[in-house]
Every structure is written in structure tokens, then in C-alpha cells.
């Protein structure tokens, strides 16, 4: 997908600054699930938030929308939507924004819809929530239209069915239809295709791209699938153990990663060249949030030749390495060579 070169700097839609989200574990210890995360999303752009399970990527966006579970809270930081402080906003204001300006689509289409209500009724509910005085009949009509727009055949009739009568791919379409019902500014998609077949994945991503094209919405795509990232992202943020370890445009990151974690992720992708040899795999697993090591959280697994004692003691700050490319590594400069080596 060729990137559109903007003629002017687009407005900042969402700005997250030093967000810290934490909870208390069973022993009462404080645990930071998101440990100081900052990024911005501009209007119309696609930001991919990439990371493993437990990296804090989902929690970050949940915090933005105020959808954190009980026991998990924002401890510090700032979240601004078009300049409005979302963390200070009351629940009523957040409810106004949710579904209308900020929409979220979740991972598992099997459970994303209420099993005891008809699909059309659930979409119509989205329509009625933020549409002033829309009648039931009108909402049903719009719901059917939305379903047709996302490619559901025979929408009006199928809307009367229950979710268990729809396939996974169709259900995800329905969920997306509900999400874009009011042309949101920002669509947050949390692993929208992980639970789907590969062929359906492509369809859903195309659907999302189409919706963005029509409405000009920005998208925050949370995923662990680098293949998706390569196809969709404008900019990428890589998260590891609750922190951002690298961020930049998709071209920068894929061509010249500046963090050993990113290098490892890219190397572990099976490409046409590496498929013949052995794929690289990052050794070990991420630390538990309650038991992060001192220093760089990735250090225990890092295989960078330039790794030093400093990596085990000082947490590397996220610093700008080149234009629009940040990395949280003490030895960001030497990553390039390492990346070439592990990619084989």
C-alpha cells in the first residue's frame, strides 16, 4: 500500500504522554502493566502497536478509552483526544465519545456479540445510542445498510439471525459495522484477525482499509502479527514488558530496526530467503510484570554483541535515533548489523 505523502502535517488526534497503568497482584504488590508509554496518533493515520502477550499493548488502549477492568487503574500520565483530557473526563463524557468518536473492535468474534440477541438488533443499538431520537425501525434499516456496506450478503434477512448462526468472519464484519456506525475519528482494533482463518484475515483487513478510506478515520491496530503490520501500518510502536522499545514509520523499522527486540521479531518472520534455513527465535520469554529485572527489560534475552553491563543496570530511555525513529536501547547504533546477521 503506497503511503500518501501528506501535503500538510495532519492534526494530532490522540496524544498519550507517560502513561502508567498498574494494579496490585494477589500478594498486594504493586505491578506496573504499562510503564510510561508515550505516542501520538494523527488524523487518518494507521498506528500499529506491536508486542507479545503481556506487553501491555491492549491495556494501553483500554486505558485510553477508560475500559480498564476493576483493580487496574491509571497511575499517572496524560491522555488527550483533540486536546481534551480523557483521564479527567467523567464517565458520561466518555460514554458520549465511545462508539461515536472513538470505537474499539475486539479480538474474538465468537464472543464479541451477545449470543442471546439478534445481530441486527445489536448493531441497531449502536445506531440508536448516539443518534438523537432515531426510531427503532430507522435504526434497523441503518443497521441492515451498515451490514450490507461491510459485505454481508442479504443483510436485512440475515440481521434477524443470532450470532451463533453466523460464521466467524461474518461476525467480525458485523462488529466492525457497529463500530463504524457513527464514522468515528479513531478505530481501535485489538487483534481483529487473530481468531480468523488466513483467507478471512485478508478480507477483514481490506474491509478495515475500505472503511478508513471512506471515513478518513485513524486506526490503532494492536497486533503481534508483523505481516499485518507490514501491509497496513503507517507508523509502528513496538512494546515490550510495558514500555515502548522502538517507534517509527513502517519503512524505517522494517529496513533498519534500532532495537534488538525488533530485530529479533523481524528475523523470526519466515521470508522466502530464510525459509530454507532455520528461523531465528528470540530465546527465553518476557518477564512477569511484577518481577521486572533492573535495567533494560529485554536484557536477559538480548543477543546483541554490544550488550554491556550497563544494560543490566540502567533502564534505557526512549530516545530519538534518526528522524522520526526512536529506540530504547543503549546500543541502538549497533543493532543494524545484528539485524542483518540474525535475519540470515
Amino acid at each position: 500500500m503506497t503511503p500518501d505523502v501528506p501535503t500538510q502535517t495532519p492534526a494530532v488526534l490522540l496524544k498519550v504522554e507517560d502513561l502508567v497503568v498498574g494494579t496490585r497482584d494477589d500478594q498486594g504488590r504493586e505491578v506496573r502493566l504499562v510503564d510510561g508509554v508515550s505516542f501520538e496518533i494523527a488524523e487518518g493515520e494507521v498506528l500499529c502497536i506491536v508486542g507479545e502477550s503481556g506487553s501491555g499493548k491492549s491495556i494501553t488502549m483500554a486505558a485510553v478509552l477508560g475500559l480498564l477492568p476493576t483493580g487496574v487503574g491509571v497511575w499517572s500520565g496524560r491522555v488527550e483526544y483533540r486536546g481534551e483530557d480523557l483521564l479527567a473526563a467523567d464517565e458520561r463524557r466518555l460514554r458520549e465519545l465511545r462508539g461515536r468518536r472513538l470505537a474499539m473492535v475486539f479480538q474474538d468474534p465468537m464472543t464479541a456479540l451477545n449470543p442471546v440477541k439478534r445481530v441486527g438488533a445489536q448493531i441497531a443499538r449502536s445506531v440508536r445510542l448516539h443518534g438523537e431520537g432515531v426510531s427503532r425501525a430507522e435504526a434497523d434499516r441503518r443497521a441492515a445498510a451498515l451490514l450490507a456496506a461491510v459485505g454481508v450478503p442479504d443483510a436485512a434477512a440475515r440481521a434477524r439471525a443470532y450470532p451463533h448462526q453466523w460464521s466467524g468472519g461474518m461476525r467480525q464484519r458485523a462488529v466492525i459495522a457497529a463500530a463504524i456506525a457513527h464514522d468515528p475519528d479513531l478505530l481501535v482494533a485489538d487483534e481483529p484477525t487473530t481468531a480468523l482463518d488466513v483467507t478471512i484475515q485478508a478480507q477483514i483487513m481490506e474491509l478495515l482499509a475500505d472503511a478508513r478510506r471512506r471515513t478518513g478515520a485513524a486506526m490503532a491496530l494492536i497486533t503481534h502479527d508483523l505481516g499485518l503490520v507490514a501491509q497496513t501500518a503507517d507508523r509502528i510502536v513496538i512494546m515490550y514488558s510495558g514500555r515502548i522499545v522502538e517507534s517509527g514509520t513502517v519503512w524505517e523499522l522494517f529496513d533498519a530496526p534500532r532495537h534488538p527486540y525488533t530485530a529479533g521479531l523481524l528475523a523470526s518472520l519466515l521470508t522466502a530467503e530464510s525459509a530454507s534455513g532455520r528461523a531465528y527465535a528470540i530465546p527465553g520469554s518476557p518477564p512477569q510484570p511484577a518481577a521486572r529485572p533492573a535495567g533494560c527489560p529485554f536484557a536477559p534475552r538480548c543477543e546483541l554483541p554490544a550488550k554491556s553491563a550497563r544494560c543490566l543496570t540502567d533502564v534505557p530511555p526512549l530516545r530519538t535515533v534518526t528522524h522520526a525513529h526512536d529506540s530504547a536501547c543503549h546500543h541502538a547504533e549497533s543493532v543494524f548489523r545484528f539485524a542483518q546477521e540474525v535475519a540470515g
Partner: protein
Amino acid sequence: MTARSTASSATADAFDPLELGAASDTPPPAPAPDTAARLRWPRLRTTEWVGVGILAVVAATILIVPLLPGSDPYAQNLSASFIPPFTDAAHLLGTDMLGRDLASRVAVGGQVSLGIVLFVVAINAFVGMVTGMIAGYAGGRLDNLLMGWADVQLAMPIILVLIALSAALGPNVWLMILTLAATYWVGYARVARSAAMSLKGRDFVIAPRIQGASPQWIVSTHIAPHVGVQVLILASADIGGVLLLTSSFDYLGLGVQAPTPSWGLLISEGQKYVREAPYLALIPGIAIFLVVIGTNLLSQRFTAERELSALRRRKKVRA
């Protein structure tokens, strides 16, 4: 009282975005210890100590009071009937409608009631454990038979079975014990069976089998201790429930027969005089309540864990 379970479920309330990652990066649970020697006695919490305390007091009372001089649950003295508690030094808890000392009746009644309960639980646990272990380890037809019978059990209300049998053969405490023994062992069998099945695939079970050890040896040496612990836990949690059940039967006249005292029977006798002498029914009732609370406090950790273990398997370990 259920603080632990409520704390966990409070944080588990509402949705949990951390659940999103379908692939779990948590390590599998630690394997069971491979020798019986490693089974340690767990540390008790405050509420559990309270439970122990209550049970100790009750046990001491029902064991000591009958040994005191002048304590006779059967001696009638109609001229000394309906003496209220704490008024007469000779009868600390008063006397009943026939002048019998209430304290000794409650104490001996406690021995009877709890004796029956422990007996019933022990038999059920043993039979259930053996059957379940064998069925779980051996599998196949035996297993199917057991599960089939278990399903039939599930729907039958015990009280109706006992009513039917009592109507046919006459109310009798042994009839009650036998009926309970014939139906309750199934719960233990299920637990033992699933424990045995999960242990079947462990290294410390497979290894001896490869070396040619006989199934009986394997079952008794390696499987039994672990299954035994599970069964013991279930049994301790069950005592309260069985006491409630047997005292209900005693109350209805389908269990322990007069003049032998038992708590349920005492309450039924005392009910006739609830206006004049409420203490006659109140005291044995409070005794039942204390024992049930005591055992529940003690075993609540394990029941809460069993209830939550299914939920926990979904909640990933976060810390």
C-alpha cells in the same frame, strides 16, 4: 469469611483486556510432588484458627461433660422438669420435659450425632476413594459403569429414598446410615477418579509401570496418597453438610430413635415446648450451627479454591 474468594472475584469482575492474548505465556502449574513425604501441612489463617477453636470447644464439651459426676442423659425426674439453664448448679443447662439433664443430653447427643456423621463420611470417603481410584486408573468398562451409576444418583433426592425405605421397614438409624452410605460415596468417587486420571499420565506413575510394577502397587504407593489428600479435603468440607442432613433426618424421626439423644431429635422434642422452654430446642440447634460453621471455616480455603480453580484457569497469572 469468604474474604479470599471475594477478593479474587472482585478483581476478576468486569472484562479483562489482558485476556485478549489467546496464547498464554504463563508456565504450566508445578508438577505434584512425587513422594508422599513431600505432602506438607499448610499454614492456617486466622479464620481457620477460629474454626479450629470452635470445633475444639465443642469436642471438649461433648467429651468431658458426660464424664462429670451426676451426668445422666436418661435419668428422669418429673418433679424437676423444665428447669431453665444457668439457674440450678446440678443442671447447668437446665432440664427437659421429663426432668432429664439437658447438658448431658446435648453432650451425649453430640457424641451420637457427630459419631454418626464421622462414620458416614469415613465409609463414603473410603468406598468412594477406592472405587473412584480404580475406575479412574483402569478406565474402560469399569469407568463407564461408575459414571452411569453416578448420574442416576444425581437426580434422586435422598430424603424421598429414606422416606420410602422407612415406610417399608420402619424408621431406624442404621437404615439412615446405610442409605447415606449407598448414595453419598459417589461424590468422593468422582473426585478420586479425576485425581487418579490426571495422575495416570505423570512420569512418576509411568516410570514404575515401564519397569514392570503391578497396577496394585502403583495405585497404592503412588496414586493413593495424592488421591487421599483430595478425598480428605473433600471429607472435611463435607462434615458440615452431612451433619445438617443427618440432623434433619433425626428431626423428622427417620434417623436416631428416642430415647437415644441426638441433636436433631432434641430439637424435635424441644419444639413442642418452644413457648414455655425455648432453650430446649435452642441449645442443640446452636450446637449444630457451631459445628457447621467451624468445619466450614476450616475447609473454606479449599472449597473456595475448588470453586475458583475453574475460573482461575481462565484468568492468566498476572504477577
